[in-house]
């Protein structure tokens, strides 16, 4: 399970490696036994399968079941909820707030993924232009950011945009960009989301940049040089030579970014001190508030099911690409 933008410490490294392999277009030949060696492999995977089934499979099933039940605090104590069919979903469809939240989540995801990919690509291209020493400096900085836990990052950004003593308001005022003294960035959801977007994109850039750079460095220099000699400008070289070669990496990175940014929760929850105003609700927050603040577990589960369904599309693209580049052979 991914831990979200900025917290994606685990999986990305693998993707980076997978992506490199994809560009090199080298297919690993798994040394296989050729024949199944009886029950041994099943015995080896059995413990993991059992645990994954218990901690992931069963909760997923329960989530689906809850979404068809009237399940509130009373039912939590009784440990049993009456079956109400599609009522939770009907309520969802007729809930104006739900559609606002869905729209907001889509816009948020689109903006964050877009900014992450554009900035990540530009910085990765910048890395290819640098000498060894400078590249090491920038890479080290990126890794430092990558390593920063999300919870810590949220607190840093909260402090930087503090309305009274935050460094941001002072800097913007000093730069004569307007009067930002005592500006409360969260009074207006638009500027509030600007801060949250900055936080999410800042945390997500290092992974995208480092993975893309790994891909770019696999593109043969001869191809780029040949294109330049033929008179192609930098943009044409990128569009017609580099990009097609690293396209599999882009597909993987975009689908992963969509998955992560679509489920952003911690950043919003913590930057609003655990009480985000309704204007700040994304789907994950909405589901959480319904379940754990209002005790509407069934309704919250229905929202979560819709979330999982939407994310399934991005996941599908991701897995298909992983299979296509041979990472799963």
């Amino acid at each position, binding site marked *: *399970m991914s831990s979200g933008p900025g917290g994606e*410490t*685990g999986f990305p*490294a693998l993707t980076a*490696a997978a992506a*490199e392999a994809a560009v090199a277009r*080298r*297919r*690993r030949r*798994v040394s*296989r*036994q050729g*024949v199944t*060696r009886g029950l041994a*492999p*099943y015995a080896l995977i059995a*413990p*993991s399968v059992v645990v994954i089934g218990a*901690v992931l499979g*069963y*909760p997923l099933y329960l*989530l689906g079941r*809850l979404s068809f039940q009237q399940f509130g605090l009373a039912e*939590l104590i009784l440990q049993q909820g009456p079956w109400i069919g599609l009522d939770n979903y009907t309520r969802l469809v007729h809930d104006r707030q739900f559609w606002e939240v869905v729209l907001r989540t889509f816009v948020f995801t689109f903006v964050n993924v877009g900014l992450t990919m554009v900035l990540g690509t530009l910085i990765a291209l*910048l*890395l290819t*232009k640098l*000498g060894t020493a*400078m*590249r090491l400096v*920038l890479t080290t*900085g990126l*890794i*430092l950011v990558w*390593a*920063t*836990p*999300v*919870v*810590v*990052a949220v*607190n840093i950004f909260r*402090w930087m945009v*503090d309305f009274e*003593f935050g460094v941001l308001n002072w800097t913007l005022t000093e730069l004569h960009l307007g009067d930002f003294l005592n500006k409360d960035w969260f009074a207006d959801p638009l500027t509030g989301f600007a801060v949250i977007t900055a936080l999410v994109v*800042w945390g997500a850039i290092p992974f995208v940049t480092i993975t893309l750079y790994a891909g770019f460095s696999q593109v043969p220099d001869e191809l780029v040089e040949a294109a330049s000699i033929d008179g192609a400008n930098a943009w044409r070289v990128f569009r017609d030579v580099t990009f097609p070669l690293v396209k599999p990496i882009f597909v993987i990175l975009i689908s992963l970014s969509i*998955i992560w940014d679509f*489920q952003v*929760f911690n950043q919003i929850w913590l930057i609003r001190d655990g009480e985000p105003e309704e204007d700040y609700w994304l789907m*994950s927050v909405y*589901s959480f508030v319904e379940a*754990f603040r209002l005790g509407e*577990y069934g309704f919250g589960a229905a929202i979560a099911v819709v979330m*999982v369904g939407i*994310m399934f599309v991005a*996941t599908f693209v*991701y897995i298909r690409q992983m*299979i296509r580049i041979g*990472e*799963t052979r």
Partner: protein
Amino acid sequence: MSAVAVPRRRRSRRRTAGRVGWNALALLVFAVMVFPVYWMISTSFKTGQNILRDTPQWFPSPATLANYRDAMDRPYFWDNVKNSLIIVCAVVTVSIVLAFLAALALAKFNFYGRGAFIVLIIGVQMVPLNALIIPLYISLSRADQLNKLSGVIVTYLTFVLPFTVWTLRGFVMGVPRELEEAAMVDGSTRFGAFMRILLPLVAPGLVATSIFAFIQAWNEFLIAYVFLNDQEKQTLTVWLASFTTSRGTDWGPLMAGATLTALPVVVFFVLVHRKIAYGLTAGAVRG
């Protein structure tokens, strides 16, 4: 001669000018990216007076450790450090043992259902934790595991185990089969070859994967926040929220606490991030 040399020199001069420009741009990007981290560390060493100033102080002078003392003296700090460590160690141990077995199966055997298992392992890592928290909460409340470290440990396996299986598989595949076979030809048993050849060669991968699992579990916030009610049961990431009260936020101690929380993660991450990428690449390009 000169006709060739002149354009070349001009070209190299242009290239040098370009290099300076790119370096300057890189420094700017570096500064913007690293600034928040710098600001956290710098704030953590400032005196209270210098933190709450109309004009920010760029370097902490005089530097003080008062914020760190304050953070560590807060109620439950050491309890929460202990809880974080207990949870993380248990999660890492269980996942590494289970995942290593599964990784052996994936890397060394061809069996019916192997592809399906791999897709399952990748797929479940994409299920949002936020969506699962409701059923997990209800399951744990039925099992009377709320507000208990054991409940959180089991729950953390949802996101640590699949990722660990996937990573370890890469490391096991990186060990050439020929080495094991050579040992077996030399009279070693299959188990002997495993102990003397495979295990030592996979050991660095096991360490790197453990550290990555450590980082993931250490950073987790939501589950600990929802499932652990008592302050003395909570973990460090939840503890950081205690610096904000209705009277405002104690920025100095909070930044000191944030630095302390991030420190082990950053150190570990810098140590192993290359290792993880290398281990997988090694597995991926072999053949």
